[in-house]
């Protein structure tokens, strides 16, 4: 299994280029945590807190949003058109080269 490369812009504007495994059932929130980036993941990945909100900057075709994610984003702050919850994005080979930015803390 290959690792995919992901560029993560943190809240200070620093870009971190990280490698994420595609065979460990990880999601984007967990990848951020594994690199000790400042993502809380308070609810553990249940789409219930929005602390892993990020903006998708590249043109990757992403997995469709499930209802839970849409509902949480409709109650979150700093939401933009390209907002997603990192915990709802599984790391797959298609995500190689993905670029995201962490949303402000709220």
């Amino acid at each position, binding site marked *: 299994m290959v690792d995919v490369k992901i560029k993560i812009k943190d809240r200070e504007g620093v870009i971190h280029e990280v490698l994420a495994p595609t065979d460990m059932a990880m999601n984007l929130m967990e990848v951020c945590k594994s690199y000790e980036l400042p993502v*809380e993941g*308070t*609810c553990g990945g*249940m789409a*219930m*807190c929005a*602390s892993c909100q990020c903006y998708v900057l590249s043109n990757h075709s992403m997995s469709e949003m499930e*209802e*839970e994610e*849409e*509902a*949480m984003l*409709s*109650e979150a*702050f*700093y939401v933009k058109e390209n907002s997603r919850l990192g915990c709802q994005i599984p790391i797959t080979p298609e995500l190689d080269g993905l670029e995201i930015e962490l949303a402000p803390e*709220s």
Partner: protein
Amino acid sequence: MIKTDILIIGAGPTGLFTVFEAGLLKLRCHLIDALPIPGGQCAEIYPKKPIYDIPGFPEVLAGKLTENLLEQGKQFEPGFTLGERAETIDKQEDGSFIVTTNKGTKHHAPVVAIAGGLGSFEPRKPLIENIAFYEGKGVEYFIKDPEVYRGKKVVISGGGDSALDWAIFLADVASEVTLVHRRNEFRGALDSVDRVQELKVLGKINLITPAEVTKLHGEDKIKAVSVTKEGSEQIIETDHFIPLFGLSPKLGPIANWGLEIEKNAIKVDTFDYQTNIPGVYAIGDVNTYPGKLKLILCGFHEATLMCQSAYKIINPGKKYVMKYTTVSGINGFDGSRKEAPKAVVKAIV
């Protein structure tokens, strides 16, 4: 002044299990929690979600787990200060502590165990200019006494269960209820969604979606809010604005207690989970040490070891050995006794 042996801050699973382990050592516990109910995140945020990694439980609902923990510790008669946040800690000359809550309730104990999880749950405040100015002047993030709203105009915003439930409840109390949500869809129990729909048709709830409260008006207290729907703004007169956007945990005042903090967690010695302040322990998700895992099962282990150490502080020099409940049974502080049935000894002839 409430007096106890171990004052536990946080009534989540780790705090609740501490009551049991302390009880085996004949130590009494009292718990403080910012939430109005015990159970912490498990009870407040995801009571209906299953947990699969509690040893011996192939599957258990989070709410059921905390119910069971309360039941398990019941005979040790824990005390509770709920709906209050531990604010300050003062070390006494004899080494004991007085912990005071935001409502002024004082607790005195020789040992303090912080089992605060990710922190105390604070309301998530919407990003509206001047909202802080109106707090307590018509803007409320919690509904404590619904009678306050009798005959008043109320605007609620949010799209989850609490926004729906309170809109339904206040429809019969307030003179006018407006519910504003960013989407047409609500994330709540199906019957609450249906009920809001009915009340809308009956004209008892003024539902505005997809829309947002964008401005607050009023000189000394709130008089009106601006609601923006699809680019156009309307002004709605109101006496109260209640944003219900859920809760987010904050370490809060504990961060100023002089404890060594690393990345929002309290550093402990893994020997007994004591912090840099002797007599103050940190257990469960709130602590950190090399190799830390934020798991309920690790919190249980930490609570157990912590109680053994706390015993030595509370009963200096007094001998004790760890006992097995299967062998010794459990003597409750309420006079109850649980024990294994005696073995039957019978001759075979």
